[in-house]
């Protein structure tokens, strides 16, 4: 505990420690370090956890990016020699897995962890220690996944890991074992994180912030967490079946025994399709904050954006089989899923229109964050429209598993998700680190990414329609065709584009280093922003808000700064953001209590990781893992919970909102 001293226990103490009040299991005191590595490793502060998620995700973004570059290098010319078939298969499997599970989801979690409490006007999340546990489980999963590179080869079945190709005979290395365990463990982390965030959103909003006055970013995060809560158990089942098959000889995908390989596909895509929205909706949330800020206008059609987000989430559970149009489902299933897939295009279209109309009549400030947000709208629209072309199931049977699909989902995920996240980086960097990212470098960063992205993925539309299938370690002149549309030219363009894209991203990293070393301190309200995270210092104090804000409007911060002039109908500034922050500081709450750091989240994660390795390396290691988990779970539960009588959360109507009941989820 850093800034705020632990409060003197006041009655009633909830779930007090059974042993001495300051120790758990009679041996270990809660850690209290506030500086150095311990302050990070044992922290339960949502901001530090958010930053760690971000660093972790960025690291794996680079890892996945290098994998992508190797893939593009291999495909730049026919019969590429840079990667062997085996290595190539591992590469594309791990590229997708890394980007989805170790970059996109953690990066969204980084934004959610950091900004959710700040936008809600809360002092922390509902279950701070579970939050830490989620992070460390993800780290454990990520390490297990990537340790396979050094332990006999990575998984080689594609991120979809279709059975029976992922079975013990067809993929004999331990790669797939590490993959299932890593994804499983990271999945547990996400599940815990999502339960935590849902409770945070539903219970810990500032006084006056009804759900319909909540920022759209929070709404999108809420939808995402629901998708995770209800889709992760499905992939858990699939992974358990596969693990049991590979490690304990179960027969789930053994066709000779009568197993049906499509079972895996259903389970995988029942998870996998909601997962797609898990990836994109946080970016939608980010630009739904950025666009109004830089257009100086509220989001157009707030309720429509919210409900379209929610309906995307719900319908997202009913379209999974459009990944399986070619598997022989029968015409009735295909038709039903085809129509459902078209239906989901409607709410997505609503979002695009609303963002566009948010800018209509605005006063647009082309900051780097805004450029990325506009980039998202345009690029995502291209991806969305190419999506409609394969909602037409017969047309999809020509396109599926070709580069056309690769183009489609990279426009959606790179042009959509990544651009949204970069928009978030530039928008919130001053908030998190107190320094402005360089806008000039940002411009270069943006344009190189736009050019690189379109050069890389644009030609893939052509390649796909010309019939170049995915997941092939070589392509051949014999099938390349001639003239303007032959594979050779467009593959070279794509590979060249990927280099430009990489340089663009490198510029971002340079910008980060440059800013950290020489960046100028950020003003308190650099963008004339609209939401509550800006009503505190940058970076925020450990307790976030000196005084818990009381909310009256959607975009409350903006409305504290501006009022409508009754006669002219224009907005007139009545205060600056700086003044408002100073005002809050002057009226700080007394006695702010925050949860203390804890050893147990990371200890449990280490136990789970050990258990996972034990599945591959034998029962004794599993037992060690289980013992660590049991021991640290007891530590977790019995820990003197400074957090229980906290007031780090603004109760909606008074009362003790956020004590942890950790072992129960």
């Amino acid at each position, binding site marked *: 505990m850093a800034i705020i001293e632990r409060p003197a226990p006041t009655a009633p103490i909830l779930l007090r420690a059974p042993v001495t009040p300051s120790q758990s299991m009679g041996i270990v005191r809660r850690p209290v370090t506030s500086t150095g590595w311990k302050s990070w490793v044992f922290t339960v502060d949502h901001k530090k956890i958010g930053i760690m998620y971000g660093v972790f995700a960025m690291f794996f973004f680079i890892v996945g990016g290098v994998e992508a570059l190797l893939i593009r290098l291999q495909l730049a010319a026919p019969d590429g020699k840079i990667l062997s078939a085996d290595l190539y*298969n591992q590469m594309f499997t791990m590229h997708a897995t890394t980007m989805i599970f170790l970059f996109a989801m953690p990066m969204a979690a980084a934004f959610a962890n950091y900004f959710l409490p700040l936008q809600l006007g809360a002092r922390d999340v509902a279950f701070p220690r579970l939050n830490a546990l989620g992070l460390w489980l993800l780290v454990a999963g990520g390490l297990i996944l990537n340790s396979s590179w050094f332990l006999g080869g990575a998984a080689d079945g594609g991120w979809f890991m279709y059975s029976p190709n992922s079975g013990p005979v067809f993929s004999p290395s331990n790669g797939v074992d590490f993959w299932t365990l890593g994804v499983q463990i990271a999945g547990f982390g996400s599940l815990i994180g999502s339960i935590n965030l849902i409770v945070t959103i539903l219970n810990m909003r500032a006084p006056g912030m009804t759900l319909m006055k909540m920022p759209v970013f929070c709404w999108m995060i809420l939808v995402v967490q629901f998708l995770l809560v209800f889709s992760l158990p499905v992939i858990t089942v699939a992974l358990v079946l596969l693990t049991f098959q590979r490690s304990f000889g179960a027969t789930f995908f053994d066709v000779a025994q009568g197993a049906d*390989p499509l079972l895996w596909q259903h389970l995988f895509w029942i998870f996998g399709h909601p997962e797609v929205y898990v990836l994109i909706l946080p970016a939608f949330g980010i630009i739904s904050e950025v666009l109004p800020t830089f257009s100086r206008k509220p989001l157009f059609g707030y309720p429509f954006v919210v409900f379209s987000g929610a309906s995307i989430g719900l319908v997202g559970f009913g379209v999974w089989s459009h990944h399986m149009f070619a598997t022989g489902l029968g015409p009735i299933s295909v*038709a039903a899923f085809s129509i459902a897939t078209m239906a989901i295009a409607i709410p997505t279209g609503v979002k695009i229109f*609303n963002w566009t109309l948010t800018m209509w009549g605005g*006063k647009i400030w082309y900051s780097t964050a805004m450029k990325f947000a506009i980039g998202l709208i345009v690029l995502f629209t291209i991806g969305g429209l190419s999506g409609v072309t394969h909602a037409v199931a017969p047309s999809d049977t020509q396109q599926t598993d070709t580069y056309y699909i690769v183009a489609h989902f990279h426009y959606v995920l790179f042009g959509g998700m990544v651009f949204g996240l970069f928009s978030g980086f530039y928008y919130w960097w001053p908030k998190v680190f107190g320094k402005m990212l360089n806008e000039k470098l940002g411009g270069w960063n943006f344009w190189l990414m736009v050019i690189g992205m379109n050069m890389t993925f644009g030609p893939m539309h052509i390649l796909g329609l010309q019939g170049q299938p995915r*997941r092939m370690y070589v392509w051949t002149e014999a099938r390349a065709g001639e003239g303007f549309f032959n594979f050779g030219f467009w593959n070279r363009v794509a590979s060249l584009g990927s280099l430009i894209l990489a340089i663009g991203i490198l510029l971002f990293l340079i910008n980060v280093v440059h800013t950290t070393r020489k960046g100028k301190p950020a003003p308190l309200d650099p963008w004339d922003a609209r939401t509550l995270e800006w009503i505190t210092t940058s970076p925020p104090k450990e307790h976030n808000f000196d005084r818990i804000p009381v909310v009256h409007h959607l975009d409350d911060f903006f409305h504290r700064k501006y009022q409508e002039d009754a006669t002219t109908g224009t907005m007139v500034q009545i205060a600056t953001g700086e003044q408002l922050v100073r005002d809050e500081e002057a009226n700080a709450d007394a006695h702010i209590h925050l949860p203390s750091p804890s050893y147990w989240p990371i200890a449990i994660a280490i136990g789970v990781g050990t258990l996972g390795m034990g599945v591959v390396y034998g029962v004794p290691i599993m037992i060690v893992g289980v013992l660590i988990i049991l021991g640290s779970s007891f530590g977790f539960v019995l820990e003197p919970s400074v957090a229980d009588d906290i007031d780090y959360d603004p109760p909606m109507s008074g009362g003790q909102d956020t004590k942890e009941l950790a072992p129960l989820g």
Partner: protein
Amino acid sequence: MPLRRIGLGLAASSAIFLAGCARNAPQDTWQPKGENAEKINTLQWMVFPLAGIVGVAVFALIAYILWRFRDRGQAIPHQSHGNPAVEITLTIIPALILSVVGVFTFKGIFELAQTNDTQMVINVTGQQWWWEYDYPAQVVNGVEITQPIITSGQLVIPTGTKVLLRETSRDVIHSYWIPALNGKKDAVPGRINLLRIQANKPGIFAGQCTEFCGLSHANMRMEAVALGPEDFAAWIANQQRNAESPAQATLAQEGEAVFLNQCIRCHQVNGLKKADGTAAIAAPDENVYSGAVPNLTHLMSRNTFAGAKFDLLTADCRKNVWSASPDEFGSAYLKGVTSDCLNQTNLRGWLRNAPAMKPMYADPTKLAVSDGKYRGMPNLGLSESDIDKLVAYLSTLK
């Protein structure tokens, strides 16, 4: 910036349209050569332009907004929260467009699933990493197939005939795709999936396995060959014939001995007899995990081998077949691989060390996981003279 965007959008959409005009692109999805692919193409021509038009309209609107409402020092705008009428309109318009698309899609799906007017059936079986075709006994256009034909790599069908492919797999999931004839359909082990194709004119149509199927997925190719009625009858007649032993005291006859010593363990040649006069029967199920290897009885009637990855024809001869006009195609194809056209490099390389040419799980030291069986052709360690003999023998398998 906005202009660039529009440019890009236009370029992308026009590129997509122009893709239909590509030359000699064997796997182009916009050049249908048969009824099923034409139906799909009609749908593509509806939805792609539609998507293009919507895209251009949206980008034009965005470009206009970005220019019109840039910060020119105007006052902070009125804090308008939206306009439900506009919202509802903008929801209904896409919904209407999509429901029109939906109706045609619905119709298309059921039309393409139709199988009750089938005129010919072929069983198509995928395994790592090649396709086997099995023609059951049946009468096709008056030509009778008296005993099942088993071939691989190149699927031969009669033109103008509705052919039903019954697909399955012997190991992992594969996907059968000849873009010019129809969309793809997965070959799933334990299931039989139906795919109907039909070719209008004689010709050769390229395809590729499109479901990731392991190590050599990229090397699992196939072709469909459509022949006119007479040529097809000739092909059938040839395929039903047993292989004949080469003449005495030729290199080919020595090659037959090598074949009986080595290759027969897996590869069947119909009509081949052992030295004692009994029929030589291959036992691929004992040596190969999928339990099947290509039947070589008429190897030289096909012009590719090893999962259609390698040409049996030299480049010039291959070109003659692929670029033959529909009228001449039948005779060009039925010539098979003549001695002057044989691609010696490929065939010899393969016999010398197959795994070096195509990645396979054929390492004898790593067979523990697959019950001691190979998943692909191993390096047989043949001497160069054995290879000479085998090439001579294989050349006789017309």
